[in-house]
């Protein structure tokens, strides 16, 4: 599918949940949403792969969910407020998810320290055009 370019396309490390992400990730996100219900959490816990059969997911989406590849889920159309429901199911915090999505091996403790030190700097993070290649 062709998507029109957006002014935000050059922002690094950011998956804007627009229409094309919605179309790509609709069922992935709706699977995550189903974990709002306690009975569904129990069913998922007792057999993750079988539970996912109820959703028309791509093989890549299934793998990302089963292997808890948080960044990959975003690339495949996941929205953080939905994928975070799966993180909550796993007993994880937003700092854990943040560290895992950083994609550079950052630990949860290192992520927490970064936040205490004022957060991830905007400098060098505005545009891919200013991000040093290497």
């Amino acid at each position, binding site marked *: 599918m062709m998507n029109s370019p957006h002014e935000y396309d050059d922002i690094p490390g950011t998956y804007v949940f627009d229409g094309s992400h919605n179309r790509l990730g609709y069922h992935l996100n709706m699977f995550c949403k189903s974990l709002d219900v306690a009975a569904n959490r129990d069913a998922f816990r007792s057999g993750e792969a079988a539970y996912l059969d109820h959703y028309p997911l791509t093989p890549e989406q299934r793998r990302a969910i089963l292997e808890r590849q948080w960044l990959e889920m975003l690339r495949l159309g996941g929205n953080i407020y939905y994928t975070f429901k799966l993180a909550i199911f796993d007993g994880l915090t937003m700092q854990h998810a943040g560290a895992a999505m950083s994609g550079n091996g950052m630990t949860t403790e290192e992520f927490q320290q970064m936040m205490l030190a004022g*957060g991830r700097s905007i400098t060098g993070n505005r545009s891919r055009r200013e991000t040093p290649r290497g």
Partner: protein
Amino acid sequence: MARLIGGIGTSHVPAIGAAIDRGKTQEPYWKPLFDGVRPVRDWIEQVRPDVCIVIYNDHASRFDLSVIPTFAIGVGAEFAPHDEGYGPRPVPPVVGDPALAWHLTESLILDGFDMTIVSDLTVDHGLTVPLSLVYGQPQAWPCRVIPLCVNVIQYPPPTGERCYRLGQALRRAIESYAPDVTVAVFGTGGMSHQLQGERAGLINREYDLRWLEGFVHAPEELLKIGHAEYLRETGSEGIELVMWLIMRGAMDPKVREIHRFYHVPVSNTAYGMVILEND
């Protein structure tokens, strides 16, 4: 006649609710935040609004991808706290004001703002955290509440300009309500934060502080900021700031600033608060 007595801008980070619910507000991590927002407790005690209109966003709680209203108003008699995966927050049920909510709905729609009308609405941390910050832990919330829910999760959210104009229409709606009630408007969310992707943890203190200054003294200047700038400068979730502009639009162009506070970090977020009165 109904009267708008003030506006509060505040972030609505879920961890703040957890800190209040678990009695952690005096712990070293939390004390600076709760000291900084203390003036809002004193202010609300003085002005005691009958009704708070809380502008917030739902975080995949009541609404999911099957229906995404851009602007929705809660017209029900009561709004239960939503279970966001940890069990519902131990806070009182939120009591609505159906008569005023229906009046606002009619006035806003006839004024050109096509609200989605919601009777059956659970409310998540986006609405209950601001109430907890302002009122603490009462047995019952001491005001009626009208939820005004804005989509900021699915791109595109409404523009800042549109939000500000909605605020102006909200002011006209409040002031055309005959009963003698006092109303406060909360604009919630922000400030800079990004929960997702390799840029998770982004904070932009300089931008936030400049935006807050403009918000108080020259809000029209902020209306030309487009979505790409919010996404770039304040992070993918910082775009929640457009909701503050609804509150600001409801207030007079020239306001008296009662309080301003900014603190980093609260969880993965920059926290901001302002209290405004009409001059």
